[in-house]
Structure formats: structure tokens, C-alpha cells
């Protein structure tokens, strides 16, 4: 079982993502942004960070990296892919997921232990959760406000594709408090908070991130 972790220039949480993969007993494979090669991995993580400095729009430049030329068709073909934070932004910029992420409404970078409600457990990355379960994982970004037009939002809600919603106060102005979404097929998930920072006792707010990684192992085995 091999899970690829993409490193773009400016990726930051790639080492953490790899550690989380190892924590559930899978092999973490480094995928380099400059190689259009997925090295035969069974699933891919687009990690957090500031790819290319995120100077234009978050994820906008990374979307054109060679590795994305290989990843986009594979994801469209059903490969389990999760985009965390900057990875979510890359998925939106690539149009693998709808909507976009804009600057937080309070205009500050914000690093907090965030409560989320899990709303969809049918995806490749969330089957080990319960519907309605509340988890606490790290939210840390400056541009985490999820936006989309009303029809898109209605469709996401109608099709049950809102996977995570912020519990409590809206931390960043995301429309309808959306923290994470999935595609029609449920193999691609994007979310702003960071499950990879919640896999080890003592080094994060909880171990609520582990089910993300155990879920995808099952999804791959059952595929």
C-alpha cells in the first residue's frame, strides 16, 4: 500500500503527511512536482504549505506543475486524492473540486484547534468516521474562506458533498461554514484543516486525524 505525498517548492506539511501515512502502516512515497510520474501509488496527498509562495493565488501556480499533468487524469479516473489546506487550494485551482478559497474574512492568518462535524462518510478518506461525529484538528491558514456561487453551493449540499463543516463560530467566513468537500465520485476530498497534525499523542490537539488515513487504506483494499 503506497501513498504518494507531493512536494512542490514551498510545500511545508509534506513531511508530516508522510509521517501520518507511516503511522497507519502504509508506505509514504515522495512525488516531486517536476516529475509527471505518480510512481504507481495507490493514493495521493497534496499537502499543506505555500506552494510557490502562494504569491499569486494559493495553489494557482502549483496547478501547472508537471506532476499535476499526471495527477489530474488519475484523480478523474478514481484515484483517491486528498488536498489538505494548500492541497485543497490546488484541487480547486485545478477544477477537480468546485469553488475557491479566498482570504479569511478577518484578514489574518489563523492557527487554532478547530472543531469540525463530519457530514459524509462515503468518501475514500472518511469511511472510518461516523456521520455527525465531531473532531478537533488544527486549522491554520490565511486564505481558508471557501466560496462558490449559490447554485454550486446548493448542488454540493444537495448531493451530500459537504464532507466537513466548522462547528461553533465560523473561523474564516467560509460560505455555509464549509470546511471540506468531495467530488461526485467521493475519491477526491479537499479540506482546509490538517488531519496530519493530529495523528500522534502529544504532538497536536488530538489523534482525530488517524481515521483519514485508515479510511483510505480500506478504500484502496476494497477498490
Amino acid at each position, binding site marked *: 500500500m503506497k501513498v504518494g505525498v507531493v512536494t512542490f517548492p514551498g510545500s511545508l506539511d509534506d513531511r508530516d503527511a508522510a509521517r501520518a501515512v507511516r503511522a497507519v502502516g502504509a508506505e509514504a512515497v515522495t512525488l516531486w512536482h517536476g516529475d509527471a510520474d505518480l510512481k504507481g501509488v495507490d493514493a495521493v496527498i497534496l499537502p499543506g504549505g505555500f506552494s510557490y509562495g502562494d504569491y499569486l493565488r494559493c495553489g494557482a501556480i502549483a496547478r501547472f506543475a508537471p506532476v499535476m499533468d499526471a495527477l489530474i487524469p488519475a484523480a478523474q479516473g478514481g484515484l483517491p486524492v486528498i488536498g489538505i489546506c494548500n492541497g485543497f487550494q490546488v484541487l480547486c485551482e485545478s477544477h477537480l473540486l468546485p469553488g*475557491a478559497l479566498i*482570504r479569511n474574512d478577518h*484578514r489574518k492568518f489563523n492557527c487554532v484547534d478547530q472543531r469540525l462535524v463530519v457530514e459524509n462518510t462515503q468518501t475514500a478518506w472518511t469511511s472510518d468516521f461516523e456521520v455527525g461525529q465531531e473532531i478537533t484538528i488544527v486549522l491554520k491558514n490565511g486564505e481558508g*474562506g471557501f466560496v462558490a*456561487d449559490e447554485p454550486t453551493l446548493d448542488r454540493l449540499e444537495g448531493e451530500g458533498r459537504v464532507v466537513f463543516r466548522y462547528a461553533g463560530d465560523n473561523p474564516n467566513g467560509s460560505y455555509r461554514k464549509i470546511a471540506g468537500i468531495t467530488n461526485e465520485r467521493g475519491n477526491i476530498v479537499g479540506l482546509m484543516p490538517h488531519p496530519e497534525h493530529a495523528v500522534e499523542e502529544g504532538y497536536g490537539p488530538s489523534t482525530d486525524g488517524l481515521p483519514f488515513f485508515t479510511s483510505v487504506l480500506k478504500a484502496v483494499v476494497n477498490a
Partner: protein
Amino acid sequence: MGHVVIDVMLKPEILDPQGQAVGGALPRLGFEQFTEVRQGKRFVLTVDGEVTDEHLAAAAEAAEKLLSNPVIEDVVSVRAEDPDQ
């Protein structure tokens, strides 16, 4: 040496926290006459020699492909820079 200027603004229906912050600060500085502020991006692309139609066409394409995200932004103009600016 010529310059192509590309202006990109958030779509009107998308929340603009930065514009809002500026809009909130202006009255505190005594500027009461502005009812709304929106903040966008301005790109200046340099080319060797005069700006040609080809340059403008390429810039327009780059604007759509990379410099803006059509989900949230509009490219409001692509033009050779006004020499008097």
C-alpha cells in the same frame, strides 16, 4: 521596452475582505465620500520593444489561464500601458 497592464478584480458577488477593511478605515481618516472599496490586482508585463497585438493576445490568454481564477475573478482589462502613466 513596452508594458502590458492586466487588471483583475474579484467578481462583485464574492466577498472582498481586504476591500472591506480599507472601506472601513477610510471614514476614520476623514474620507466619508466613498461608499464602497474593492481591491484587485494589477500585473505589469514587460516585453522587448513595442507592445504588439500578439503580445496583447498572449497576455489576454495568460490572464485567463493563470493570472485570474474564473470562479472568483474577472479580468477587467488587458492593455498596452498608457505612455502618460
